[in-house]
C-alpha cells in the first residue's frame, strides 16, 4: 500500500521529473508491430500463438487535448477495429491514403491484405492475398509503395524482392540481383527509389524505372551479426540528397550514411549495449520525424535509447543517450516474470516532437514524452 522503496517505485517517482507524459497499458497479447494508420490511430497485431488479433487503436484523447488537457479525463486507448489472422504476424504496413493494411506472417506463403473498415463496422476483414515464392520463419519483409496505385514491396531474400500491385496482384517490378542474402528491411525513398538492407548489413539501392540495383557491402563485415536500418527523409517524395540511412548491428555498431554516398558511411560509432543473438528479431533504429537528427534504438533489452547524432564522431567513446526509457523493465509484470521483457518495436509520434510509443514482449504498451533537461527547463 505504501509505495515501497522498490526499484520500480523509485522509477515512477523519478518519472515525475523525467517525463512530461507517461501512459502505461497492457495489451492482452504482445505485438511486434506499431503502424500509424491515421493521425491518432495505430495498428498492432499479435505474434504469439497461431491465432492472432489485429487491432486498430485510437490514442488517448488526453494527448490531443492541448490546453484543455486538464479537463480531459480520457487517458485510455480505444479499440476501434479488430480482426483475426490465422497466423502470427511478423510485419504490418499501412498503405497511405487508404484503409488497407498488408501483413506478413511467420512461415507463411502469402501476404494478407486487409480492410480496416470505416464507421459502420468494427471488423477488420481480409480482402485478398499476394502469393509468395518462398516462406521464411521470420516472415517476408514488406514496405508500402509510394505511388498513387497501392502497391507493396516485399521479399525475404534479395533475389525475390518485387513490387506487387495490391488490387490486381500484378508484379510491377522485380529486383534483378542474384543474391540469396536474407532481407532485414526495405523501404521506398520516393515513388521510384527504394532501399533494401540485407541481414549482413549490405545496402541495395534500386529504382523501379531501372532493372539494375547497386549494392554497397560493409567494409568490415563481421559474421554472426544481424543488421537493421532506419531511413530518415524530409518527406515521402524525397530526393536521395535529403536522406540519411542509419544501420545498426546486433552488437550495437552504428553506421550513418548519406544516400548520395552509401559506399562510405560518414559516421561510425559503437553504442554501449549488450549483444544477445537471440534478440535479433527486435532490432529497431528509427529517426525522429520532428527533432533534428535524433534517432532512437531498441531491441537489445527492455530499454529505448534516444540519441542526438549531431555531435557524433567516428573517433571517441560511445555516445551517451539523450534519454533512456526504462519503463518496460519497471512494470509489475516484469517484476514477477522469469525473464525481463524486451522492447519489440517502437515508433515516433508523427507530429508531437518527443512522443514515442513502445511495446515489449510482455504485452506492455507505453506512450511517453520525455523531458529534455537542457531545452525543457
Amino acid at each position, binding site marked *: *500500500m*505504501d509505495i515501497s522503496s522498490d526499484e520500480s517505485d523509485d522509477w515512477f*517517482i523519478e518519472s515525475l521529473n523525467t517525463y512530461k507524459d507517461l501512459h502505461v497499458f*497492457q495489451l492482452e497479447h504482445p505485438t511486434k508491430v506499431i503502424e500509424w494508420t491515421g493521425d491518432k490511430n495505430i495498428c498492432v497485431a499479435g505474434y504469439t500463438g497461431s491465432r492472432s*488479433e489485429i487491432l486498430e487503436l485510437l490514442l488517448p484523447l488526453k494527448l490531443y487535448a492541448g490546453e484543455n488537457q486538464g479537463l480531459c479525463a480520457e487517458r*485510455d*486507448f480505444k479499440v476501434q477495429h479488430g480482426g483475426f489472422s490465422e497466423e502470427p504476424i511478423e510485419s504490418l504496413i499501412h498503405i497511405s491514403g487508404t484503409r488497407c493494411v498488408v501483413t506478413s506472417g511467420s512461415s507463411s506463403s502469402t501476404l494478407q491484405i486487409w480492410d480496416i473498415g470505416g464507421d459502420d463496422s468494427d471488423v477488420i476483414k481480409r480482402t485478398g492475398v499476394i502469393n509468395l515464392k518462398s516462406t521464411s520463419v521470420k516472415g517476408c519483409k514488406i514496405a508500402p509503395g509510394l505511388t498513387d496505385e497501392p502497391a507493396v514491396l516485399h521479399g525475404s531474400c534479395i533475389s525475390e524482392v518485387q513490387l506487387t500491385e495490391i488490387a490486381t496482384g500484378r508484379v510491377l517490378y522485380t529486383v534483378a540481383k542474384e543474391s540469396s542474402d536474407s532481407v532485414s528491411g526495405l523501404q521506398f525513398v520516393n515513388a521510384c527509389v527504394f532501399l533494401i538492407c540485407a541481414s549482413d548489413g549490405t545496402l541495395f539501392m534500386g529504382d523501379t524505372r531501372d532493372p539494375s540495383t547497386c549494392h554497397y557491402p560493409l567494409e568490415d563485415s563481421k559474421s554472426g551479426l544481424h543488421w537493421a536500418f532506419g531511413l530518415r527523409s524530409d518527406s515521402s517524395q524525397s530526393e536521395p540528397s535529403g536522406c540519411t540511412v542509419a544501420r545498426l548491428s546486433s552488437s550495437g555498431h552504428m553506421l550513418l550514411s548519406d544516400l548520395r554516398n552509401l559506399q562510405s558511411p560518414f559516421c561510425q560509432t559503437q553504442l554501449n549495449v549488450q549483444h544477445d543473438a537471440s534478440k535479433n528479431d527486435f532490432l529497431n533504429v528509427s529517426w525522429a520525424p520532428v527533432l533534428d537528427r535524433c534517432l532512437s534504438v531498441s531491441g537489445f533489452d527492455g530499454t529505448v535509447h534516444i540519441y542526438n547524432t549531431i555531435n557524433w564522431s567516428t573517433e571517441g567513446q560511445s555516445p551517451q543517450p539523450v534519454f533512456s526509457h526504462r519503463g518496460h523493465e519497471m512494470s*509489475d509484470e516484469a517484476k514477477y516474470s522469469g525473464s525481463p521483457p524486451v522492447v519489440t518495436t517502437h515508433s515516433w509520434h508523427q507530429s508531437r516532437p518527443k512522443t514515442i510509443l513502445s511495446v515489449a514482449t510482455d504485452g506492455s504498451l507505453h506512450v511517453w514524452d520525455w523531458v529534455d533537461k537542457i531545452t525543457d527547463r
Partner: protein
Amino acid sequence: MPDIKVTPLGAGQDVGRSCILVSIGGKNIMLDCGMHMGYNDDRRFPDFSYVTQNGRLTEFLDCVIISHFHLDHCGALPYMSEMVGYDGPIYMTHPTKAICPILLEDFRKITVDKKGETNFFTSQMIKDCMKKVVPLNLHQTVQVDEELEIKAYYAGHVLGAAMFQIKVGSESVVYTGDYNMTPDRHLGAAWIDKCRPDILISESTYATTIRDSKRCRERDFLKKVHETVERGGKVLIPVFALGRAQELCILLETFWERMNLKAPIYFSTGLTEKANHYYKLFITWTNQKIRKTFVQRNMFEFKHIKAFDRSYADNPGPMVVFATPGMLHAGQSLQIFKKWAGNEKNMLIMPGYCVQGTVGHKILNGQKKLEMEGRATVITGTANNVIPHLASTLLDVKLQVEYMSFSAHADAKGIMQLIRMAEPRNMLLVHGEAKKMEFLKDKIEQEVFVRCISCYMPANGETTTVVTNPSVPVDISLNLLKREMALGGPLPDAKRPRTMHGTLIMKDNSLRLVSPEQALKELGLSEHQLRFTCRVQLHDPHSDTDTLGRIYTHLKSVLKSYSIQHVPDGTVIVESIVIKVTSSAEEPNLKVILLSWSYQDEELGSFLSTLLKKGLPS
C-alpha cells in the same frame, strides 16, 4: 422451450443508467435501478411501463437487486419503490445499504434545493425505501422464495460493489454491475467461481478500451499536486468520504515522506470520522493491505496530514486540502473553492463524476465564470411589485482544473478474464452499439476456453430471449432400469435419447422415476389391470386349430413389425393381445375368435378386431 428473457430498460443507445429486467424460471427480477444523470426530466428515470402500464410494481417483480451505491445504479430506487410503488424485497450488500441513503440524500438536496425540482423523491421516501432493503453477505445463498435464490460475489470497483448470481432450479444468470479485475490500493479484484451461468450480463461501456495503468494515474496526480505546491499554490481536492480519499491520502503521505516536502496537507474533520466509521464496519470489503494497516494504526493518523480548520484556508503559502462534499455543491469544499478560485497558482483536482447542476459539473465543462449565491437580500421591482432575491456574485475561475478519474472498470482484457472465470453459456452485453462491437462479439464467441458461447448485444428497450437447456435431474429406480435394459436394443447413449415409460414421483425436492407398480405400492393403492375382450364371429370350415393357424399367417403378413407368436397351447399372441378360436359342437363352422387385450394395447386391439371382422383370406 425454456428460456430466459433479458431487457435493459432505457431508450436507444443511452448509456449512463442501469436498469435491467430478467425473467427466469417464471420469476421477474430487476437488476439495478439507476438514474440517468444527463437528463432533467422524466427521461432520467427508467421506463417502468415495460413492467406494467399503470400501477404498482410489487406483483410483477419477485425482487430488486442493487449492485453498488453509484447513482447511475441506484439513483432511481426511491422513485421506483415509493413513487411508482414497490413493496417487495430489495437486495444489496451491507456497505451499499449503509452508503446508498447518504448519496441519495445528497443527490436529492442538489436536485430539489439547488435546482428547484418538484417531481422528485423526498427524504422520507429515501428512508421508507431503505426499510425494504434486505442486506446480504458475500457468497451467502439467499432464498428469495422457494424457487429463487441469489448470491453476491466480490466485484471490486467501489466499497460494497457486488456481482450477483440469480438462480431458479438449474437455470442461472450472473449480473456483473460494475467490476474491476485488477486490485488497487484499497480494493481487491473481482472474483467468481466456475458457476457456468446460462447468461453472464455485463456492461460494454469499457469493453473496447485498454485502460491506462493505475500507477500512471497516480503519477499524474502526484505531479500536479507537486507542481502546484512548488509554485506556492494551493490544491483543493473535493472528495466523498469513502475510498478515494483514503487512497489519495495514503499516496500523498508516502510521497511527502519520500520527497521530504513541507507544505501542509489537511482533510476536513467530517471526513475522518465518517471514513473511519465505514472502514471499521466494512473492513472485510477492503483488500489485504488495508486490513493489515488498519490493525497497526488508525486509518487517519498520518504524519503529514492534519485535520483542517476553516481559518486555515486564508493562510498564505502552499497547502493541499481534502474536503467534502465531492461535487462542490455545498459545504466546506465549496467555501474553500470560493476563496481559492481567483488565483491561477492554485489547483482544483476533481477525482470523480459530478452531477449536473453542481459547481463541480460546471467547472468540468470549462465554465470560467460562475454565479454564486450571496447572502444579502436585494429588493427589486416597482412599488407595487417587490421582488426580493439573494444577490449573486460572479466568481472568476482562474485556478487550474484537473479532472482525474480514479474509478476502476474492467476493460477488454478484464471482460475476457471474467468470462474465463465464470464460463457462461451465453454472454450479454448492455449499453453498446452492436455494429461497433462485432469484433468483441466474435472474440467472445470464439473464446477457446469456453464452449458453445453466444454473445448478445440488445439495444435498450429490446428483449433478448436466450433458450436454455436446463437439465432436470431425476433418480431412476433400479428395477425400472433393469427392466429397460432387459428390453434389449442399444445401450443408453447421451447422443441417442430413447423414450421410456415410468411413473414420475415429485416429492419434497426430489424427482424419481419408478415402475407403475412401485408407484402404486408407495401410494398405497391397489393396482387394477384393465383388459378388453371382444368376440368376432367367423365362418370357417377348418378345424379350430387350423383356423388359428390361418389367423396367425394372416396377421403375420399384415403386421410385419410386430411380435406375433403362435403358442402350442392354442393361442396366438400379438404383443399383449391374446387370440383364441373356439367353436360349438352344434355349428363347427361358426368360429368364435376371442380377442383379449390389456388397456395399454387398446389401439392395436381395436385394429385387430376390425381386421378380423373382415374375414380371413382364402
